[in-house]
């Protein structure tokens, strides 16, 4: 565990100590604020629960996009600068390294989520939503973000450079986001499978409404685990090149 936290700590501070980390954070918060203003605060009167629902929806989407930018450097940058040797020649296992990287990405994403808290706080003060509803919404955002960070960690582990990692990560993430559209034009039995994979349409909706859906939790956790496992295998495979 110490090794995992060591890797996570360094990578998290690398985000905090660079312009890149703050640029991602600023952009994500700006977009989140704009969306909240456009969809939540203007136009016709809405129920506060609906405003929270929309906040969770677009914040999850922004978290996914941020995950691509956050994770692209995790392994690919270390490979480009040669510092991957420090990790590869250390007594840490590949699983520890992957988990450390994943945790750093999640910590940064959680930091972003924390900074968005003023928006649900406004809904709480001016509307009728409970703290539990807000907490469940954030759980949904972090679960979606976790899947995004998992996909990005894997993409970075298999890529030689950050750009390639970002492209792979984006393609896979977009696939999961647009599954509901693909399902419409797909015949059975694949229709059900593709439909099941849809991030927002299928699995996030209950969290937007303030309900913890165990099926959704299982889906996002499984997806994260699967991609981290793939990242782990790709790191091991590199030693056998």
């Amino acid at each position, binding site marked *: 565990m110490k*090794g995992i936290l*060591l890797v996570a700590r360094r990578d998290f501070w690398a985000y905090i100590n660079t312009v890149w980390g703050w640029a991602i954070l600023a952009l994500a918060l700006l977009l989140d604020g704009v969306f909240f203003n456009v969809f939540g605060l203007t136009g016709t009167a809405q129920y506060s629960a609906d405003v929270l629902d929309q906040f969770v929806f677009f914040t999850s989407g922004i978290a996914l996009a941020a995950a691509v930018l956050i994770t692209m450097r995790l392994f690919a940058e270390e490979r480009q600068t040669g510092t991957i040797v420090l990790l590869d*020649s250390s007594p840490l296992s590949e699983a520890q390294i992957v988990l450390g990287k994943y945790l750093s990405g999640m910590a940064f994403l959680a930091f972003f989520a924390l900074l968005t808290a003023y928006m649900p706080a406004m809904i709480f003060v001016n509307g009728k939503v409970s703290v539990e509803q807000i907490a469940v919404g954030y759980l949904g955002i972090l679960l979606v973000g976790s899947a995004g960070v998992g996909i990005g960690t894997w993409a970075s582990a298999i890529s030689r450079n950050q750009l390639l990692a970002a492209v792979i990560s984006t393609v896979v993430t977009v696939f999961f986001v647009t599954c509901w559209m693909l399902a419409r034009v797909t015949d059975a039995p694949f229709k059900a499978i593709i439909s099941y994979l849809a991030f927002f349409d299928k699995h996030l909706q209950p969290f937007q409404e303030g309900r913890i859906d165990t099926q959704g939790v299982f889906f996002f956790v499984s997806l994260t685990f699967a991609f981290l496992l793939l990242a782990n295998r790709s790191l091991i495979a590199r*030693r056998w090149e």
Partner: protein
Amino acid sequence: MITVEGLTHYYGERRAIEDIRFQISEHEIVGFLGLNGAGKSTTLRVLAGLLVPSAGSVTIDGVDLVSAGATSRASIGYLPEDPPLYREMTVREFVAYCGELKGLDARTVESRLDGVLKIAQLTHVQHRVIQELSHGYRKRCGIAQAIIHKPKLVILDEPISGLDPRQIVEMRQVIRDLAKDCTVLISSHILGEISETCDRILVLAGGKIVAQGTEAELAARAGGDGARLTLIVRGTEAGIDAALTSAPGVLRYDRHEEGAGLWRLHVSLTTDDREALVTALVKAGVGIRKMVEDESELEQIFLGLTQGASA
């Protein structure tokens, strides 16, 4: 004791190294010599645990590195040619972080830090950000990260490349100091450096070890009984030519006038029969003021061994 047995590695279908075998004793400094593509880097990467060999074993004090898994990497320190550095960190932070990465607890790291920084001659820059340091200091940071966990084997890939003459001299001292606590394996293409720093030399060609031993042992193997001599003599041009033409075993020679009747001769002998050479010169009326054996023959030895292996 580090023992390498039958080390072989393939990249796909291509064989990079084959049946590498050698042993290194404790506190020995061993040089790894080879042309580009000879398999040096692959061997070093296998020894550092970055690659799993296709066949063979590496044992340190009887512990097999491959079967022992990730934890065995704690007994090795590795510095690649380009030092791997987190440049946003200060020197002290970086070395401390690497110590913890290698499995040391924070208290142990703290107790070792000052000593390691002193060995690597980094004490006076320890609070500076690595980004601001010169190439020489960055190399030393690389060495510090490789030794902070007191490894049994330290692998240095081209440790003096890119250093200026003063830094080279300082680096030699750093390497000699390292050998007091651990075994050092150095890869370099600078032959003089290997000769200067190492106790023993391993010559790699075509993915195989073609020779190993001290410089003298390699010279004996590569050059047979021959010798290369430099002489300062006094005599006439005709007398010198007559003596060197008639002396037994003279393979080739050249002469340069030094002034005041003195000549500098460079003589290559097929067999080390320098007494016969002296006799021939004296008989021809040539006075010998100085005769020395050429010191650095490593280049010829190396070329002889590697050409012999690839032929």
